[in-house]
């Protein structure tokens, strides 16, 4: 994973627009959050290989970044805190946000094929 290149991400968002896609969207603070520190609240959520189509999609911010996808069926996908992407991927978007220790906190991935 490399630090996000905003223009590179936007380029792929534009390429994937208007197509049937599979999404992986996730946020987690780790299964052991409350075990390690009682004051914390363990929470995580993911949706994997749900099908979406968006007609507007863009990346915003100065890093960490936000991505918003306006869905054809009328809904939204939103993700904040994205720091990294995989720049070797040209046909799909693999993005994540990592904390200071390098752990994944948030992930957003789009692909024509299931993950």
């Amino acid at each position, binding site marked *: 994973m490399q630090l996000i290149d905003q223009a590179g991400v936007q380029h792929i968002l534009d390429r994937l627009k208007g197509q049937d896609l599979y999404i992986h969207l996730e946020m987690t603070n780790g299964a052991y959050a409350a075990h390690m520190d009682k004051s914390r609240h363990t929470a995580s959520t*993911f949706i994997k290989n749900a099908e979406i189509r968006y007609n507007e999609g863009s990346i915003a911010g100065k890093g960490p970044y936000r991505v918003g996808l306006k869905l054809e069926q009328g809904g939204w996908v939103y993700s904040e805190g994205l720091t990294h992407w995989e720049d070797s991927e040209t046909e799909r978007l693999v993005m994540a946000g*990592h904390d200071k220790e390098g752990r994944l906190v948030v992930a957003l991935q789009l692909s024509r094929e299931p993950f």
Partner: protein
Amino acid sequence: MERHILVILPHPDDEAFSSSGTLASHIHKGTPVTYACLTLGEMGRNMGSPLFANRVTLPTIRRVELEESCRAIGIEDLRMLGFHDKTIEFDQTRLTQKVEELLEELKPSLVITFYPGYSVHPDHDATGAAVIRAIGKLPAADRPVIHCIAFSKGCENEIGKPDIINDVKEYTEHKIRSVQAHKSQFSLGQMVTGKSVDDPAVRQRLGTEQFWTYRM
């Protein structure tokens, strides 16, 4: 001496700190060990330090790490059962059936798993619960002994002290290699708070593994 040990844990690396020394010692004595690892830990947060994995590549990387850990321990029969990380408690029918098949095939004398309710991660608790449910269906005379791993805060107030304390100092090297095999997940330096693995306190900690015998 045990006849056959069946280890059932949900994530690659669950074996490393909990039981790798115990397993290496049994294997050294000639007991066959089968490790059924339910998932590939595909939802783990650790991607290596510095980062070398991502959500897409993590399962493949962790599969290779798991195989390397098993080689370090001496485990020759590794079964990767293809469940998805974090979903164990929602896939109980399939899991119970898988565990029943393994028990039928291997007829282990000892099963190692997590103590349901005292193992922090929902996948751990659900794995232990399925194993105990499957073993409970066997006639009492055919049931293997069950050694459980537990580590929730305050668990000893409810289930008492562990009754099995294994001295595995002779197998510390196996254990360290098992831990280090999981490169994307652990930095041994962090786990032993920056001390050398040759530090006596670290050796002491790595040299003991503890379990609770599950009473049906």
